[in-house]
């Protein structure tokens, strides 16, 4: 409720002479306030997703390089035998 009151206030302030040139549209103005929290959460989710992706990528790289070195060792072993 407090949030809604705050929005009303801000819209009123915005309407009092601030927007003489381009009308931002009340709906767009209020909407930015309403989605501020959601965008924060989305940003956090994106960060988490990126971190997970990076971790997975580095894990798969590590695995790939480990199996590559195993392959090398075994091929060296084969050559020796």
């Amino acid at each position, binding site marked *: 409720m*407090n949030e809604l009151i705050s929005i*009303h*206030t*801000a819209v009123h302030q915005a309407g009092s002479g601030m927007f003489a040139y381009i009308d931002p549209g009340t*709906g*767009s103005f209020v909407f930015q306030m309403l989605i501020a929290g959601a*965008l924060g959460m989305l940003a956090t989710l994106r960060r988490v997703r990126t971190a997970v992706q990076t971790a997975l990528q580095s894990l798969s790289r590590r695995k790939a390089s480990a199996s590559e070195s195993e392959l090398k060792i075994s091929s060296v072993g084969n050559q020796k035998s």
Partner: protein
Amino acid sequence: MIVVSAPERLPGSFRDPDGFVFRREGVVLRQVSQSYRREYDHLMGSGLYSQLVDSELLLSHSEVAPMSESGAYKVLRPVQLSFVSYPYEWAFSCLKQAALLTIKVQRAAMKHGMSLKDASAYNVQIHGGRLCFIDTLSFEFYDESQPWRAYRQFCQHFLAPLALMRYVDVNLGQLQRLHIDGIPLQLASKLLPKRSWLSPGIAIHIHLHARSQTHYESTPVRINAAKSRYERRDLERLLDDLEAVVSGLEWKAGNTNWADYYEANNNYSSESMAAKESALTGLFNDLESKTVWDFGANNGRFSRIALEAGARTVVSWDMDPSCVEANYQTSQHRKENGLIPLLLDLTNPSPAQGWAHAERMSVLDRGPADVVMALGLVHHLAIGNNLPLSDVANFLSRSGKRLIIEWIPKEDSQVQKLLASRKDIFDNYTPSGFENEFAKFFEVEAALPIKGSSRVLYRFRRLGL
């Protein structure tokens, strides 16, 4: 201070009370009103202007003497644009880059205590092979407690057309021609498919945003005394999100009849193609052409010959969005300074429109070019579109001072393709018919048969030049 007649404002420059654009002795100037004094001084003094210009985001300007009694605080002489283009003529990637540029400019402005008061796609132009922001008066003081006033305009001018082009059809970019202040979000939301809701960015900034607009259109917002805080980080997040959404919108140019024309779908042998290129180079050799318009440019192959021959600006027009996209990407990749690839259906060219038919210029209003090229085009206009040759000649004579045009005779396989499923009603479509009709508007300067083909390249000069 010099005294001259009052400046004549350009018709499209009426929205901003803080100044306007006008032309004096052929030079485009921008008047800054007294009402914008503080903002202009801050823009210049805070380091924002130099940062934007140094990073090639903003068109630079110099200050010139204002006219007496004009009420001007300053008069600016911006670097002159070689050609003005509009968002409905841009490739998908071009509109996308313009959106990202606008966000970059807004971020830079916020660092210097300013913010964009509008986010119009018309504030961006293609200049010197790159996009740049051109409206010096778009900056206002940044109030950190307020949301971004240009948010709606950004979504209407950039996000909505890009999403419609990506999710529905690339040709929906033409809706920008119909809606001069951007595509209404309610309309975009209606046209977008349900699967677009799966993109959180599109769901928020178009679908829910549109619903919010509809809701508050009919819901009075009352005054309430309480604290209100929209914070800087909220706007930063909004910009991050808009940037992520725009960056994620991709459109892959598909295979159209025209996209592979030069590679697989034409009747030129490699020898006759080389002969055509060499003949074209020869026709440009003794010309000093600042501006060339290449109508039906496809992927810009021949536009680049004009550029190499010394043209400063080549506007490379084509009606196929795939070709324009390919042409634009090539020009960006090669960092070509003078090439401007644009979308244009010559049978329905960009009109003069907006308030009093004068806010946005028609194609002809933006000419005449020094040279117009019309290669592989005349049969599409005359036979594909039933245009009498005299009408074709008339339009081309109004487009440019000189014309390089390729005559394609009726026996050519491309013409035969056009005639395959229709009656041949084109008795005047003959070499002499062509020469006679064009002689009403032009005099012949050269006529070069293209080796290995039955086609002829003509160079005409407009009568009375």
